[in-house]
């Protein structure tokens, strides 16, 4: 499965991709994660690609995405053409105005309401993605979060992830 996460710098898109990849690795799946970002630390587009497969992976970037998660219009506009015709589009509904069918929720607002921190938007979106696709198990992602986020922020990130996951189950 080819998953592409797109947003702007500062939204934690690459970290979400790394955590999703780590979760797949924990499950023993083959996984590749790459990233593309402009040189601006905030504000430029930020793209994370994750390819997960039981077979060996030869691609190095997403060529035809099965799932595109767009957290910002800039990221969406940059890569929207890479989503398959029958692919799944998940958006941050406050920040992206898509031109095709989609699923989604106001992830940033959910993050603020759940943790008080807008910057946990990446974990909310990740939870939503995992609930909608089942690409990896919830427990694997929580383990990956514990391994990858800065020490002391594990609980707040997992809380945000769970909020997104619950939203995705609705």
């Amino acid at each position: 499965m080819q998953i592409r996460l797109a947003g702007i710098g500062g939204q934690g898109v690459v970290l979400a991709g790394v955590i999703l990849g780590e979760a797949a690795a924990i499950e023993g799946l083959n996984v590749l994660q790459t990233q593309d970002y402009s040189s601006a630390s905030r504000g430029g587009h930020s793209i994370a690609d994750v390819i997960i497969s039981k077979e060996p992976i030869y691609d190095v970037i997403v060529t035809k995405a099965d799932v595109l998660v767009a957290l910002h219009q800039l990221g969406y506009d940059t890569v929207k053409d890479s989503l398959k015709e029958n692919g799944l589009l998940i958006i941050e509904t406050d920040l992206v105005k898509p031109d095709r069918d989609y699923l989604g929720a106001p992830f940033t607002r959910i993050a603020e309401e759940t943790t008080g921190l807008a910057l946990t938007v990446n974990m909310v979106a990740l939870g939503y993605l995992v609930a909608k696709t089942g690409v990896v198990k919830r427990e694997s992602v929580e383990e990956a979060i514990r391994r990858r986020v800065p020490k002391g922020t594990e609980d707040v990130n997992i809380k945000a992830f769970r909020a997104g996951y619950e939203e995705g189950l609705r």
Partner: protein
Amino acid sequence: MRYPFPVGKSDFIQGDEAIARAAILAGCRFYAGYPITPASEIFEAMALYMPLVDGVCIQMEDEIGSIAAIIGASWAGAKAMTATSGPGFSLMQENLGYAVMTETPIVVVNMMRGGPSTGQPTFPSQGDIMQAIWGTHGDHMLIVLSPSTVQEAFDFTIRAFNLAEKYRTPVVILGDAEIAHMRERVYIPNPDEIEIVNRKLPANEEEAKLPFGDPHSDGVPPMPIFGKGYRTYVTGLTHDERGKPRTVEPEVHERLIRRIYRKILDHKDEIISYDKFMLDDAEVAIVTTGIVSRSAIRAVKILRERDVKAGLLKLNTVWPFDFDYIEELAEQVEKIYVPEMNMGQLYHLVKEGANGKADVELIPKIGGEVHTPMEIVERVVG
């Protein structure tokens, strides 16, 4: 021995990190470097790990100093590595030749980015293939390895140290910005699962007096270690078996350089490594090295679905080069394609190997993106 990272299990890490961990498992205890994208993460990992394994990690004033420092460290008995990218690799060329001439085991990593000059720091390229082989001046021989996955970045780094030690030679690892920064699941073995080769040391006073001789008739002299009781003379000037400069006698120079060639080329069957993919009945061959191999495997699969008998030869070693095998391949197939991320470098080696027995066509790509499988497929089917 405790390692500062998990061993005997899989991890999800970048190519740069894999190279650093492999170096430590291979026994590397001295790293000198100068930061440069996309190789800086190797340096960062070494800075973190080296103090935890009683090793040394030092930032030098530049890349010239970095390779000089690891040559010195190697003569002091340490397995040593440096890592850089294009501009830094250019600066290292003179001392790379010094390492060849003084037969110093070192590992030099070049994570290729777009060039020339400072070029495209964050984008991958394969523009340094010829430089890795022939960048330093004079007749010389060394070994160049080229990984295509993060696992291979790990495995080939271990192999690089073993080859460096076994043949007393510099070994270059040619990665690229894509492998440097992408993460994949990698198996980090337990130390007892890894074969480790250590350099030959002088067995006695007689051998120690001939640090550039050939007492074992394999072209590889035992290497005395500074501070271990022997007087040794090390110089980049043409020298005799004892290491003494002798620059005006043609036969001394010829004997030295021919042995440096021979110690690698006499063992090329052991050094050269490649993987074949659906090549046995192939009528069209694709020859690649490094990151492009991944797209080429996909291209072969697509071509097979379209009833084109395509196969892939993936070169794990870029140098020494198996010209004879390429000629055999050229006799078997009708055409050979060489996709590479440059304007044509590996292509020239393949064409020389094919020796006119098959058409060889270059599929160049520059700008910072890896060939897509379809870009290769479309060139093959026309």
